[in-house]
């Protein structure tokens, strides 16, 4: 198996279990930590048909490009033994399916989003701390989220930002809208998309009004800010809880809670595919089908917090009743299941990641005071256009 990042199959004991069920199979995994290293290598291996593992993982940000350009290098898992389209969230299934109906990967996890918040800072600012009431503060509208932020800034503790970064606000807002960067025919429409404009508007306002902490996610600085409680809220896909717990540590124990996000959306998640050139294609396809079946996804959630992409899992005991003690015993199973089923079906495109990164850069320019929102948008457009032009 060729993987990147964390899937946690091994840690959750799933390999051992499968090997026990199928004594003639041994599973080895080959993991590269960062997708930005993994993905170009995967492309190299695919295009030269060598060096591939029997199973290869693909991140959601890259799946459209792989479907577009490498579909003939992968097996059709839609017909694999034990794989059932009905078991998956429809949009998740479609993301890995080409126009001709070939499904090149089965979904592992998804990232339904909530908002994590610091109860202590909310209390200090005179905001509610109960997760239901907090969710009501901003229910249905990201503008309300900003309003709450303005209140927070007026009455909240000194030196604490409302939200970690403008980019994260943008990611939350765009994930919860109907459209993204491509229309259904596959044309890039980000410049004229009302959804992008709205999400940009909210995020750039947050940046301009200095509601954000001017932090870049997944950097040391961000980790430290998390540990020291320098921001009050953060967009929280299911897997982010583990991150906060790890970085916040005992210092922040009992201070965090999690509430529904203004509007549900998806951030992250992956797929497993089986390359055509593999030596054990049939066995690999069976393994993938088994690993992504609802039962195993539920186990993985219970063990590792990766949220299932298979709705039948949501009714299972392990998911339904899951709570998280670090977040004040929040009923995360229920909360994320509700969010997952409301996630809008978006058209994704091959260059989503590139567009996303450059828009994020634009928002940082505002946070750092180098550009006003209009100037920053122009910069972002310039960079995106340059990146897309072949």
């Amino acid at each position, binding site marked *: 198996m060729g993987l990147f990042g964390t899937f946690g199959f091994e840690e959750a004991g799933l390999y051992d279990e499968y090997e026990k069920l199928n004594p003639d199979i041994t599973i080895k995994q080959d993991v590269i930590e960062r997708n930005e290293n993994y993905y170009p290598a995967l*492309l190299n291996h695919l295009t030269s048909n060598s060096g591939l593992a029997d199973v290869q993982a693909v991140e959601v940000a890259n799946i459209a490009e792989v479907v577009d350009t*490498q579909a003939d290098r992968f097996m059709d898992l839609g017909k694999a033994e034990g794989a059932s389209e009905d078991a998956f969230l429809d949009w998740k299934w479609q993301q890995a399916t080409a126009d001709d109906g070939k499904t090149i990967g089965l979904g592992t996890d998804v990232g339904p989003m909530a908002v994590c918040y610091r109860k202590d800072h909310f209390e200090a600012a005179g905001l509610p701390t109960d997760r239901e009431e907090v969710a009501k503060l901003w229910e249905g509208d990201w503008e309300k989220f900003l309003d709450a932020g303005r209140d927070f800034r007026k009455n909240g503790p000194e030196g604490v930002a409302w939200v970690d970064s403008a980019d994260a606000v943008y990611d939350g807002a765009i994930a919860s809208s109907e459209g993204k960067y491509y229309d259904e025919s596959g044309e890039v429409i980000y410049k004229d998309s009302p959804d992008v404009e709205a999400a940009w508007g909210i995020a750039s306002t947050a940046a301009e009004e200095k509601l954000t902490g001017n932090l870049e996610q*997944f*950097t040391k*600085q961000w980790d*430290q800010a998390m540990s020291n409680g320098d921001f009050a809220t953060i967009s929280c896909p299911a897997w982010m809880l583990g991150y906060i717990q790890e970085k916040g540590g005992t210092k922040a124990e009992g201070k965090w809670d999690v509430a529904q996000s203004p509007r549900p959306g998806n951030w992250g998640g992956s797929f497993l595919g089986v390359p055509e050139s593999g030596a054990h294609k049939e066995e690999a396809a069976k393994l993938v089908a088994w690993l992504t079946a609802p039962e195993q996804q539920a186990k993985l959630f219970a063990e590792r917090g990766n949220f299932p992409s298979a709705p039948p899992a949501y009714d299972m005991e392990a998911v339904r009743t899951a709570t998280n003690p670090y977040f004040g015993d929040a009923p995360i199973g229920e909360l994320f299941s509700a969010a997952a089923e409301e996630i809008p079906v978006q058209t994704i495109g091959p260059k989503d990641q590139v567009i996303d990164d450059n828009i994020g*850069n634009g928002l940082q320019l505002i946070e750092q005071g*180098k550009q006003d929102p209009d100037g920053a948008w122009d910069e972002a457009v310039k960079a995106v256009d340059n990146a*897309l032009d072949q």
Partner: protein
Amino acid sequence: MTQTGTAVDAPPSAEGGAVPKRPATEDRRQKWRSRRYRWDAKLSPYAFISPFFLFFAAFGLFPLLYTAWASLHRVELTAPTDMEWAGLHNYTRLFEDHFFWNSLWVTFTLAVLSTVPQLLMAMGLAHLLNYKMRAASFFRVAMLAPYATSVAAATLVFAMLYGRDYGLINWFFGLFGVDEIDWKSGDWTSKIAISTIVIWRWTGYNTLIYLAAMQAVPHDLYESAALDGASRWKQFRYVTIPSLRPTILFTVVVSTIGSVQLFGEPLLFEEGAGASGGPDHQFQTLGLYLYEQGWRNLHLGRAAAIAWVMFLILVVIGIVFGLISRRLRKS
């Protein structure tokens, strides 16, 4: 550089029976020996350099030619054999490419900011290390520690040092009442910070190279200089430096090439920035821009063109160096 040492074409002994009185067998042996000798002198240079060129032809030439070919095409990493002829478009577009000019400027400033102090410091340190002292090998090895430190570790440490809110450097400046500096987002501050990483990584390396060369300088030169009453500084200036000239030229060329290709340090400087060199591309070098085009945006043809432009820039720099060193030698 123009030394034409040995080469010694065969000594003028055996010009076919110049000494007729000698017995025939010995004469033949002599002849055979001298012929072997001549062939040896003529062919051995090529034998000595051939491994390099053979391996280069096997593993270096194909990539080079492929890159040249690819730069004339529209070709994506998702299908590297699928090329569409584009002529010089990938080159001409660079003239209007704001990001290219930016990266050129960044590369130039970073090269100056890092190379000059690095080599000066290395020379000074090598001079000190050349003294007789205790724990000499400890110091030498310690100088090389940055070069041996893993990239992951170095990144984490420098990210920590240059942190905006909790960085040690800002804490230190704070003691003198300096405000928090946002090292990574500033235009010049980020460049200065990155050059310190480069300097940190490569000074010890150059020190060792200088040291190895200094130790080959004959000691009697110093002794006679000392007898003439030359001070330590004068000995350094008039004995050490001239003796080291080939090595200095070497380090200048290598560091210049290295700084034009500068890649690892700016890539790792800020974990989140990836290949963009910061939101304003304020530390995106040519190497980084090439990488972004090829490996992030997946445009192999465009990246190949940038690679060739880098190559040409280096060739021009090389010619300038060559002219300068020829001038210096004459004067």
